[in-house]
């Protein structure tokens, strides 16, 4: 495989490769095909079938529901539908990981959301002049939610915090720029 450009590398870093789903599917198909092959060869060699001959299988399938329990059949159908839907969604959705990228001249710079959250929490603490444990930062894709419990008696405005966070995101040049939501709790924390 040859060169990938930086954009491709970035996308690959920020999204999931769907390897686990692929491996699960491949194993499923191998087991099914292996069983069919085994049963067919037993028949070809004139041996007793392991579970049932291909003909018995086909008779069972073609006369469904036959004598099988309707509820069990419906349950199996529901489970298979959900399973199929899960795999389908895995194939179709972008599968973004909890990561962001930052602009950098030299390299593709990727950071886990938790690292970004920690940096933002630190900055908020400094700018809102609150102690550790009074700030909670939640990052979810392109939304950042900051919850602050101010110190009692010290008023705190959203704008200061938002300005500080925007500045911090700008310094770190996080792309794409997430939206910031600040929630200042009504109850304060006593004496810091």
């Amino acid at each position, binding site marked *: 495989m040859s060169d990938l450009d930086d954009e491709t590398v970035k996308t690959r870093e920020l999204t999931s490769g769907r390897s686990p789903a692929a491996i699960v599917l491949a194993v499923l198909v191998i087991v099914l095909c292996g069983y069919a092959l085994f049963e067919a060869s037993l028949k070809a060699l004139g041996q007793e079938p392991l579970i049932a001959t291909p003909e018995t299988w086909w008779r069972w399938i073609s006369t469904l529901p036959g004598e099988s329990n309707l509820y069990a059949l419906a349950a199996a159908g529901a489970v298979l539908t959900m399973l*199929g839907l899960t795999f389908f969604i895995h194939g179709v959705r972008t599968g973004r990981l909890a990561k962001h990228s930052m602009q950098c001249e030299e390299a593709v710079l990727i950071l886990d959301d938790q*690292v970004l959250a920690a940096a933002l929490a630190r900055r908020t603490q400094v700018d809102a002049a609150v102690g550790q444990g009074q700030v*909670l930062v939640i990052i979810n894709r392109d939304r950042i939610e900051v919850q602050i419990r101010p110190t009692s008696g010290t008023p705190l405005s959203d704008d200061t915090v938002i300005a500080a966070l925007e500045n911090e995101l700008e310094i770190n040049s996080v792309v794409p720029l997430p939206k910031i939501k600040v929630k200042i709790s009504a109850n304060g924390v006593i004496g810091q």
Partner: protein
Amino acid sequence: MNLTPRPLNRLLCAIFGVLIMVIGIHLLLISTISGYARWWRAFAGEVGQTSLQILRNTTLAGQKDSWLWILIAMGLIIIILLMIWWIAVQGRGRVNEYVNSYFQDDPVPGRIEITDAAVEQILRTILGKRTDIVSLSLTLWENTPTPGIRVKVQPRSGVAPAELGAQVALAVRETQELMGVSGPIVVHLAAGARARFARSERVQ
């Protein structure tokens, strides 16, 4: 960073997902709507008759079964082999040799090989004893002419990421200059293993 065939993964996931869904919905319909079940039995009976006819027509004189079974068996084997290949290409594309080239130098010609461990040691030396880095590891991915470098750095909580990231990236560039090569670089600032499975990140 690796060279897992992602479009293939997605395509096959979607196709198999739809197939499994179709079977599931089919079972649901059979067990709930009797009219559908009746239609299915009639339809499957017809299909069974036709295929039986085909199998009979393709049975050679003196043979017990149709030669189509051999084709079916071969098809199954091919599918199994393809699936094994599909598993094998997951996570492919890692290499552990950074430089591997032959120099026709006059007194002593020879081949030079530099492994990923050597690159990592150089990087550690350049970055020195930094207190804001908890751990650092380096992997290489297949790329021409030079493998790409992916550095995973675990910073201490609350460190300004842009500055650290840029410094690490610069250090990697310096390392590359030392080796006399250039190539793509990925710097990944990672949280601890504890947070790897979390979807949204909460930090106090």
